[in-house]
């Protein structure tokens, strides 16, 4: 029965009760008035009121319980979120936010944000992680009180380590006297963010709607300020479900969101950096989590060309076009060893870039640079460091430490270098020629290595990437996954030129990132249109969240997922093997607890079960091209597609 019908029939329960209440109140008033004589002149002796009359005038009218309402606190929370231009809210259902969910999908008309159904909170957060890196802006996530946040914790940690913004909400059932016994207590919490506070930038539990508005807008600003990070707001259950009358609503104000400019390096320090770089004979530019836009990529190319300096990319983002002759990552170790000045831009692990620790019983380490090498470090690292989790890595000194956002700083560094070079624009040309010569050798070396095991079954990683390239080379392709365990062939031979074509890895090395980030990244690509998103997902990684294929099918998010199926958590196979060797016990048992065989998993069938297209398993390299072609066609038709490829361990 729709509302109109209900009203016409006079069965709207709240309206009915309200009518009764008004009628009763009126009746009392009328009754009291009727029993009161007209006003008499002063000094006229009037009869004293009866006890009933006194009670009617001074006591509260009998309480009538309201069972429905037209506007709630959760509606206002939706109003707040709508001011932030958030496109999506990913969520696995949970009763602690039932009012909010209903408000988003009905009051908010399920637009801006649109509610997305995920089958695990790790997927909700992980897809927001991948989405933000492609879309360049955050999406929102709603998590069930206590248990939902616990489910999501690893994905939040990944996003935090990767410095990616996510606007996260959780909920709690409200004050003790309002909670239903049992489940609402299990899902209530004094401090909803405590579980994850070590790896979110900021959190709050607002105790009023006005506070919710201010905290949510504040949180968005903090999440998107460099270094970016997830933030978490707890939406109290009572605030969500409370009736919001017009008077109370009129007092609420939603602050205007203002995104601040990012921190830029001190001009004096940049001048000093420019001097050091121009004076160097063998400068090297190390980049890691540097570029977050095409402008950042273009600026890096400009700086590298000014200096004719090689760029060594650690690939936490797409920083430097792989087809540029100054992209010199394949000989990064040699360049670092020879460098007299290193410019490091947003390193995740500067110590790891400049030192090597040997994984033997004796953990010896050594510098990979010369003792005299000067280090310039431009980074936001020091602006977000916490104590407990060790994602800050080992301390590494720099000769010139510039605490600033490297991408925002780059135009000013370029200006400083240009001033320092002055008229000597061709002074670095010989160095550039050496780089061109070296770059030409990279492809030949990769081809020689790629030929190894070309026809082998399981299929070699080089063969898989070659077959894939052959099918997508005319498409606007983009990788959604880091592909570190399948040979990095995309960085060795594919022309990665656009910022969105590669988005780096998990951040915290939490297994399960690949399928969930792929889902979110594919969503952002879908909204742009015309792109072919590709994810190379390890079988171990995929098994953490295979149901992403359902969410992709349900919300019509097309992407090509190639399962790099080596039937193992192969990194762990190698770790156990290393320990077995170290202990002189043989490696036969290294497969216990590390391999995923007996039975082998049918990933194509799994994908089909979730409503996606499933192809494979493919173990014959000669069949792979046709399988990928079929998969690409299905993606272009709007489907999520999984191809199970039986591959070499690495």
């Amino acid at each position, binding site marked *: 029965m729709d509302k109109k019908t209900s009203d016409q029939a006079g069965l709207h329960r709240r309206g009915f009760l309200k009518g009764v209440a008004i009628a009763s109140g009126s009746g009392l008033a009328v009754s009291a008035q009727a029993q009161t004589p007209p006003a008499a002149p002063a000094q006229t002796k009037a009869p004293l009121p009866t006890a009933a009359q006194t009670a009617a005038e001074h006591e509260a009218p009998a309480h009538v319980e309201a069972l429905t309402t037209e506007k709630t606190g959760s509606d206002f929370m939706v109003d707040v979120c709508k001011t932030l231009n958030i496109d999506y809210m990913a969520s696995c259902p949970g009763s602690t936010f039932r009012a909010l969910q209903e408000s988003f999908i009905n009051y908010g008309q399920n637009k801006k944000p649109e509610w997305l159904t995920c089958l695990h909170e790790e997927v909700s957060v992980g897809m927001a992680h991948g989405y933000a890196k492609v879309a360049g802006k955050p999406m929102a996530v709603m998590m069930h009180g206590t248990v939902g946040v616990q489910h999501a914790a690893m994905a939040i940690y990944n996003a935090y380590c990767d410095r990616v913004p996510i606007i996260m909400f959780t909920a709690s059932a409200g004050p003790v006297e309002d909670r239903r016994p049992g489940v609402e207590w299990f899902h209530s919490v004094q401090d909803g963010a405590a579980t994850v506070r070590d790896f979110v930038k900021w959190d709050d539990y607002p105790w009023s709607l006005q506070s919710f508005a201010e905290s949510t807008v504040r949180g968005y600003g903090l999440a998107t300020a460099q270094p970016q990070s997830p933030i978490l707001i707890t939406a109290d259950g009572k605030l969500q479900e409370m009736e919001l009358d017009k008077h109370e609503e009129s007092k609420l104000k939603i602050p205007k969101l203002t995104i601040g400019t990012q921190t830029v390096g001190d001009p004096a320090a940049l001048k000093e950096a420019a001097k050091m770089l121009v004076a160097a004979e063998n400068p090297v530019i190390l980049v890691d989590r540097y570029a977050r836009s095409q402008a950042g990529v273009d600026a890096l190319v400009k700086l590298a060309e000014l200096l004719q300096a090689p760029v060594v990319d650690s690939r936490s983002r797409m920083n430097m076009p792989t*087809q540029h002759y100054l992209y010199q990552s394949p000989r990064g170790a040699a360049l670092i060893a020879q460098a007299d000045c290193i410019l490091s831009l947003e390193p995740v692990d500067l110590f790891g870039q400049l030192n090597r620790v040997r994984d033997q019983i004796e953990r010896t380490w050594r510098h990979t640079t010369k003792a005299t090498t000067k280090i310039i470090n431009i980074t936001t690292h020091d602006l977000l460091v916490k104590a407990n989790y060790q994602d800050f890595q080992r301390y590494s000194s720099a000769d010139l430490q510039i605490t600033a956002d490297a991408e925002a700083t780059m135009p000013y560094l370029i200006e400083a270098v240009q001033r320092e070079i002055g008229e000597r624009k061709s002074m670095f040309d010989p160095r550039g020629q050496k780089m061109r010569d070296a770059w030409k050798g990279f492809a030949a070396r990769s081809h020689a*290595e790629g030929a190894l095991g070309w026809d*082998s079954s399981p299929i070699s990683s080089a063969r898989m990437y070659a077959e894939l390239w052959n099918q997508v080379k005319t498409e606007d392709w983009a990788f959604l996954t880091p592909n570190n365990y399948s040979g990095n062939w995309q960085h060795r031979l594919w022309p990665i030129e656009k910022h969105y074509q590669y988005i780096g890895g998990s951040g915290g090395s939490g297994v399960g990132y690949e399928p969930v980030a792929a889902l979110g990244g594919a969503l952002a690509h879908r909204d742009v249109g015309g792109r072919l998103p590709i994810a190379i997902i390890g079988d171990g990684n995929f098994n953490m969240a295979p149901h992403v294929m359902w969410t992709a099918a349900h919300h019509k998010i097309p992407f090509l997922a190639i399962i790099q199926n080596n039937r193992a958590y192969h990194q762990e196979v190698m770790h156990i093997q290393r320990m077995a060797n170290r202990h002189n016990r043989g490696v036969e048992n290294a497969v216990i607890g590390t391999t995923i065989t007996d039975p082998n998993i049918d990933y194509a069938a799994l994908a089909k079960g979730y409503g996606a297209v499933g192809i494979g398993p493919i173990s014959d390299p000669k069949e792979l091209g046709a399988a990928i072609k079929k998969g690409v066609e299905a993606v272009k038709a709007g489907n999520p597609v999984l191809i199970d490829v039986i591959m070499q361990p690495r």
Partner: protein
Amino acid sequence: MKFFTAALVAGLSLGAGTAFAQQDTAPKGNIENGKKLFTANGCYQCHGTLGNGAPLTGPRLSNTQLPFDAFMMQLRSPANEMPPYEAKIVPDSAVADIYAYMQSLPASPNAKDLPLLTGMGVK
């Protein structure tokens, strides 16, 4: 010794190809047993099922021209990240079998004959 180690590392990191000429002093190994041992000892986990090698984990071993002594030395006292295999786990005779198996594998195809491979990417 220092020179030898350096040369060995270079040989391995270059895919065990050209640093040494193959020596005739290698003991005669059992190819079939070597194939079994290559799998049983987990060599393929880093070096690929055909000893084809893989970026980041292990260099090519198939059709290696690394001398047997150097092969043995790398196995017993790895100069890099490779875990050690002592004689208690892989006896000398087993090393010889694995070496023979690696030698028996066909050479990889020439990349120039693989247009699908050389066509990858933009030139």
